[in-house]
C-alpha cells in the first residue's frame, strides 16, 4: 500500500515540477514580450496527508496556482502618469516644428517689417523718384507676405494636428474594441474559475495604449473587466461594449476638427476639448491653446499695424494729387487679418499713388507724410499698446514661454512615467538569471522525484524477488 502511494505521489509531484519548469520556460520565452508579467507556480505540500497511526505521512507536492507578479499600487498610478506624459510630450512635439515665429529666419516677419521701414526711409529722401516708389511698394508687399507666411506656418501646423487627431480617433476606436473583446474573454475565464494570465497581459497592453492616447481613467469592475471613462464622463469602454470615436468639422473653430463619441445606437455626441487627455489632449492643447493664441496675436498685430499705417497714409498725397487712400487692404476686423493682409492693388499697379506729401502743394518733393508714416514704427498699436516690433517680440516671447513650459512639463511627466514604468518592470519583468536559477531548481526537483520513483521501483523489485 505505502509503496504504491509513493509511486502515485511521485507521479503527481513530477507534474508539479514539470508545471514549474514549464512556467519558468514560458517566462524565459517571453523575456522580450511587451506588457508581459512574469508568472509564478505556487507549490505546496499535497493535503490531506495520509494518516499513519497517530501521525501523518506526506503525499508529495502539488502546484496550487499560477499567478502573475503585479503590484496593484504601481499599476494604479501608471494610467495617470502615462496619460500625463503622453499629453505633455504630444503638446511639446507639436510646437517644436513651428518656425514661423523664430527670432531669425523663419517667416522673416521682423526682417520684412524692417525692410518696409528701410524702404520708407529711402523713399522719404527721394519721394519723386519712381524707382524708390516701386521699391517701397515692393517692401510693403514683402511685409504683407511675411504676415501671410507666418500665419500660414501656424495654421498649417494646426491643420496637420487635425490629421493627427483623425488618425488618433480611429486608433482609439480600434483599441476600445480590442479592449472590450478582451474584457469579454477575461470575464468568461474568471467565471470558469481559471486565471487567464496571458489574456490579462494582452489587455494591460491595450489598456495602457488607450489611456496614453485618450487620457481616460481605468475603472475596474468586480467581474474582472475594466472600463475606460473619459474626463468628461463619457465611457469609451464599458465592460465588453466599446464606443467609437470620430471627428467632425467645428465651424466655431475655423473648421478645425472636434472629436465625437458614439455609444451603441445612441446619438453621436460632440466632445469638448476638456474631455480628452493623453496625447490627443496634448494635441488639442497645442492646436487650440498655444498655436491658436499665437495665430490670434499675429492677426491682431497685422490688423492694428496695417490700420495704423493706413490711417497715416490716408493723410498723404500721391504724385497725382489724390489723397485719402489706404496702403494696405485688411479686413474689417482682426479675425484672419494676418492671412488676408495685402498691399492695395491700386498702389501695386501705380506706385505714384503712394501718399508721400503732406499737402497737394508739396507734390512731388515733399515727404513729410512719409516721415510721419515712418513714425508708425514706434507708435503704440491699438490692442497691445506697444510698437509693432515690441508687439511681435512679445508674441514671440509668449509663444517661446509656452514652448519652454511644454518642454519642461514633458521632461517632468516623462521622468515620472519612466520611474513608474521602471518600478513596474522591476516587479513584473522577467529576469533571465532568476528564471534560469528557478528552471534549474525545478529540473533538480524533477530529477529528485525521478530518483524517488527509481528507488520505489527497486523496492518493489526487492519485494517481488522474495521467495
Amino acid at each position, binding site marked *: 500500500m505505502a509503496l504504491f502511494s509513493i509511486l502515485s505521489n511521485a507521479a503527481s509531484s513530477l507534474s508539479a515540477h514539470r508545471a514549474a519548469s514549464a512556467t519558468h520556460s514560458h517566462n524565459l520565452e517571453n*523575456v522580450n514580450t511587451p506588457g508581459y508579467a512574469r508568472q509564478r507556480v505556487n507549490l505546496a505540500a499535497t493535503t490531506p496527508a495520509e494518516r499513519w497511526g497517530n501521525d501523518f505521512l506526506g503525499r508529495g507536492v502539488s502546484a496550487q496556482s499560477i499567478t502573475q507578479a503585479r503590484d496593484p499600487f504601481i499599476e494604479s498610478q501608471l494610467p495617470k502618469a502615462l496619460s500625463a506624459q503622453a499629453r505633455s510630450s504630444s503638446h511639446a512635439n507639436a*510646437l*517644436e516644428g513651428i518656425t514661423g*515665429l*523664430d*527670432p*531669425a529666419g523663419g517667416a522673416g516677419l*521682423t*526682417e520684412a*517689417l*524692417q525692410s518696409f*521701414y*528701410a524702404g520708407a*526711409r*529711402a523713399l*522719404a*529722401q*527721394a519721394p*519723386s*523718384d519712381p524707382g524708390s516708389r516701386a521699391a517701397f511698394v515692393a517692401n510693403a508687399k514683402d511685409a504683407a507676405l511675411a504676415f501671410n507666411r507666418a500665419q500660414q506656418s501656424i495654421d498649417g501646423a494646426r491643420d496637420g494636428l487635425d490629421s493627427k487627431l483623425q488618425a488618433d480617433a480611429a486608433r482609439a476606436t480600434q483599441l476600445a474594441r480590442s479592449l472590450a473583446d478582451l474584457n469579454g474573454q477575461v470575464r468568461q475565464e474568471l467565471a470558469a474559475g481559471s486565471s487567464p494570465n496571458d489574456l490579462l497581459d494582452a489587455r494591460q497592453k491595450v489598456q495602457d495604449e488607450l489611456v496614453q492616447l485618450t487620457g481616460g481613467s481605468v475603472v475596474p469592475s468586480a467581474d474582472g473587466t475594466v472600463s475606460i471613462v473619459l474626463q468628461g464622463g463619457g465611457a469609451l469602454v464599458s465592460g465588453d461594449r466599446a464606443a467609437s470615436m470620430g471627428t467632425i468639422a467645428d465651424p466655431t473653430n475655423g473648421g478645425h476638427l472636434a472629436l465625437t463619441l458614439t455609444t451603441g445606437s445612441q446619438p453621436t455626441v460632440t466632445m469638448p476639448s476638456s474631455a480628452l487627455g493623453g496625447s490627443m489632449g496634448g494635441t488639442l492643447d497645442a492646436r487650440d491653446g498655444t498655436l491658436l493664441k499665437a495665430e490670434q496675436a499675429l492677426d491682431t498685430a497685422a490688423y492694428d499695424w496695417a490700420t495704423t499705417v493706413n490711417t497715416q497714409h490716408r493723410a498723404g498725397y500721391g504724385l497725382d494729387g489724390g489723397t485719402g487712400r489706404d496702403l494696405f487692404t485688411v479686413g474689417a476686423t482682426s479675425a484672419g487679418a494676418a492671412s488676408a493682409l495685402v498691399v492695395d492693388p491700386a498702389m501695386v499697379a501705380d506706385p505714384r499713388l503712394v501718399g508721400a*506729401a503732406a499737402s497737394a*502743394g*508739396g*507734390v*512731388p*518733393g*515733399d*515727404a*513729410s507724410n512719409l*516721415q510721419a508714416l*515712418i513714425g508708425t*514704427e*514706434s507708435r503704440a498699436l491699438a490692442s497691445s499698446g506697444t510698437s509693432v*516690433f*515690441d508687439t*511681435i*517680440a*512679445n508674441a*514671440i*516671447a*509668449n*509663444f*517661446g514661454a*509656452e*514652448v*519652454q513650459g*511644454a518642454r519642461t512639463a514633458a521632461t517632468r511627466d516623462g521622468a515620472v512615467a*519612466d520611474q513608474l514604468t*521602471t518600478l513596474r*518592470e*522591476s*516587479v513584473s*519583468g*522577467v*529576469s*533571465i*538569471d532568476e528564471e*534560469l*536559477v528557478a528552471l*534549474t531548481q525545478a529540473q533538480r526537483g524533477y530529477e529528485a522525484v525521478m530518483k524517488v520513483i527509481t528507488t520505489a521501483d527497486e523496492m518493489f523489485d526487492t519485494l517481488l524477488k522474495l521467495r
Partner: protein
Amino acid sequence: MRVTDRLHYESAAKNGAAARSRLQEAAQEAASGIRVSHPGDDPHAAAQIVRHAANAQRAGDIARQLGVATDELQAADGALEGVGNVLSRARELTVQMANGNYTAVDRANAAKEVQGLFQEALGLMNTKAGHRYLFGGFQDQAPPYDATGSYVGDTGVRQVEVAPGKLVDASIRSDVALKGVGGGTDVFATLTALNTALAANDVAGVQNALTGLDAGIQQVASARSQAGSSMSAFDVATYALQALKTEALGAQAHLQEADAIEANTRLAQATQALDAALTASARTFGLTLLDKL
C-alpha cells in the same frame, strides 16, 4: 531594487538616446554658432533679439539716408560755392568798371562777361543731383530758375531723420539765398541791373550794384554755412547711429550666438557622455548567467 534584463536594455537604450540627443544639440550649436534658433530655446532672449535686430537695422537705415542727404548737401554746397565765385568775380568787375578811367567799350565787354556770369549762376542753381533739382524746394522735377532768373520752385524744405522720430532740415531755401525772399537781395536782379548799367555805360548804376553784390555774397555765404552746419550735424548723428548699430548688433549676437569655447566644450562633454553610456551598456550586456551555466 530587482533588476531585470529588460531594465538593462531599456536603460541602455534610454541613456544612449538621451546622450545622443544631447550630442546632437551640442553639435548643432557648435556647427551653426546659434544658441537661440527657436523661441522655446530662450523666450526672453528671442524677444530681445527681435528688438535689437530692429534697432540695429533702424540705426543703419537712418545713417544710410543721412549719407544720401549729406551727398545732396555737398552737391548743393558745391553749387553755392560756384555762385559765390561768380558773385566775387562780378564784384571785382564792378569795382573795376566803377572807375572813371574805363571806356564805354571796356564796360560793354564787361557787360558781356557779366551776362556769362549770370548764365553760369543760373546753371549752378539749376543743378540736378540724381533724379531731382536741388534748389526748387518740393518742385524738384523741373528747373527751379527760368531763363530770366525768376524762381519757379516753392518754399518747401526737405527734412531727414537724424534719430528715430527726430527730423532736421536737409535742403537750402534758394529763394532766400539767391532771390532775397524775406528781406534780402535778389542776386539775379542785381546781376541783370549790373549788366544793363555796364551796357549803358552808366557808372552810377554800376556803383549801385556793389551794395547788392555784397549782400548777395553774404547771403550765399550764410546759406553755405547753413549747409555746412547741417552736414556736420549729420556726421555727428551718423557716428552716433553707427555706435548704436554696433551696440545693438553686439547685444543681438550676445543673446543669439553661442560662445564658441563654451559650445565646443559642451560638444566634447556630450561626446564623452555618449561614449561612457555606450561603454557602460556594452559591459552590462555581457553579464548573464546564460554564459556561465
